[in-house]
């Protein structure tokens, strides 16, 4: 394996992540935690959009459902975080599964619009079901501690995020290399061919939505504790833009690209926080550059120039000079040479 091969780079990143709490101040640790949380969101979005090709906008809603689920189970039912957190993620996964049923009948813009409507509906619930969600003001999440482990809450939470992110990263890698992952890509690349060879469309899409929802839900649970606070605007349409931007920058159809995109977007946005207005301009600029010139995302550049970066199932950016395969003009029967 080459020196800068994928495994080596990821191991170095993991080592850096492991020692971060020892060298970083609390703000930097918070940013590190955010990167891990958004990596989960980006992987979830990438599985659904980059691999399975489902243009869905419900990820922010699942993120919110994970956060609200985790927080409210603690507030209303007094459940400990250790139970509320996985329960919140499972609720998000269940909702993801549920919205995959109408999604089986829809595709493209119609799927995008209906899932967008669902995301807005979730926002409405967060805002107006005040008895349960505490409305526009949101609510503070209960304090958690990592006793008997000898760590403070931020450090404990950071390591929890790291553990979850590493586990779910490895799970996603194995998933996309498995038959299920191949079925995701087959559904994206050619739904009819997939169906005609016996790939179960319902099951494949439902899995993609459910797994993607689970990732977003897990991220939501961690995020609620990272902020210590849950309110509707944390899970609005801007989040969708953010998640999509991460996989566009990192690379659609690449698990490593999700990590890369999440890291870059979060760090760039944080660096620009001090300059008023700069965030939006730079964010828009980055998106434009990638959409116009770097359709495969950063991972496609790395894949081309770094030896040993062997990224299976990576979505090739569509080449504009290439006509679609069916656009070949049909020659009349009489002109075709009879073999």
């Amino acid at each position: 394996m080459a020196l800068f091969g994928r495994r080596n780079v990821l191991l170095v990143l993991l080592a850096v992540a492991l020692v971060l709490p020892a060298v970083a101040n609390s703000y930097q640790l918070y940013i590190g935690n955010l990167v891990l949380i958004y990596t989960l969101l980006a992987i979830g979005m990438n599985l659904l959009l980059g691999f399975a090709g489902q243009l869905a906008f419900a990820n922010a809603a699942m993120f919110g459902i994970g956060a609200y689920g985790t927080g409210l189970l603690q507030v209303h039912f007094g459940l400990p975080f250790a139970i509320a957190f996985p329960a919140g993620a499972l609720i998000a996964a269940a909702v993801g599964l549920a919205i995959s049923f109408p999604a089986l009948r829809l595709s493209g813009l119609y799927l995008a619009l209906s899932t967008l409507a669902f995301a807005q509906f979730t926002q409405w619930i967060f805002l107006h079901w005040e008895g349960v969600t505490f409305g526009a003001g949101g609510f503070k999440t209960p304090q958690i501690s990592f006793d008997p482990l000898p760590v403070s809450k931020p450090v404990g939470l950071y390591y929890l995020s790291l553990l979850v992110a590493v586990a779910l990263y490895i799970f996603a890698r194995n998933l996309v290399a498995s038959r299920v992952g191949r079925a995701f890509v087959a559904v994206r690349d050619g739904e009819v061919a997939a169906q005609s060879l016996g790939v179960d469309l319902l099951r494949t899409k439902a899995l993609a939505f459910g797994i993607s929802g689970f990732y977003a839900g897990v991220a939501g649970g961690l995020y609620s504790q990272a902020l210590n606070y849950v309110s509707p605007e944390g899970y609005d349409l801007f989040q969708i833009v953010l998640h999509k931007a991460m996989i566009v920058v990192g690379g659609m159809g690449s698990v490593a690209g999700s990590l890369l995109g999440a890291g870059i977007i979060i760090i760039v946005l944080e660096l620009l926080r001090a300059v008023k207005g700069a965030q939006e301009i730079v964010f828009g600029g980055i998106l434009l550059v990638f959409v116009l010139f770097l359709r495969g995302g950063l991972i496609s550049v790395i894949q081309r120039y770094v030896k040993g970066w062997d990224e299976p199932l990576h979505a090739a950016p569509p080449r504009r000079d290439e006509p679609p395969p069916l656009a070949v003009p049909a020659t009349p029967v009489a002109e075709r040479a009879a073999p």
Partner: protein
Amino acid sequence: MLDIRNLKVSYGLTQVLRDVSFSVPEGKIVALLGGNGSGKTTMLNTLTGLVKPGGGSILFQGQECAGIDASDFVKRGVVQVPQGREVWASMSVDDNLELGAATRHDRAGIKTDLAEIYELFPKLKVHRRRNAGSLSGGEQQMVAIGRALMARPKCLLMDEPSAGLAPSIVADMVDTILALNKRGLTILLVEQNIGVAAAVAEYAHILQSGEIAFSAPAPGLVDNPAVLSSYLGR
């Protein structure tokens, strides 16, 4: 092997297939010819469960298959090579072929079949790690055929395998179809290219506006000006 009786299919109010009956005997190649919009692709999609028939029956090896799911057709041994190849472009040739066996769970058998397909198409073996979308049209057609073979079909339904290919590649395709048939595969070939059909098929049916308008031994078709002009509009 495949008996189609009084098959009717409609999309909403439009009847696409009206009362079509024909059969594909075991071990033979039968061609289904027809111009654009005659119902050829609908016929294949109905015979593989992608479209549900409004009436009639599809008997495969004596068993009624009308209305069963696409994956059940594959499991029983009826597999389609779709029109326009439809390879999974961003997946490697290897992955395309392996997912062709989506309905199978015998790992060892899948491995042997994969090796056999690379023997049949040595060109594919060279490109096995490349994305299928980066291959030439002829090579993509090989991927599409190989992928269907991975499902271990007894009856292969091919939708215009010669469409959009250069004449020399079409000749290779004819050889491939004959070779597959020699290995015992029953084939229903849907074509617009009478030359290809005449070169491989024993019998041909001409589909026109959703009905079988003419049936004849395939080899004589190229010399039959009446058939060419009245049924295919040439």
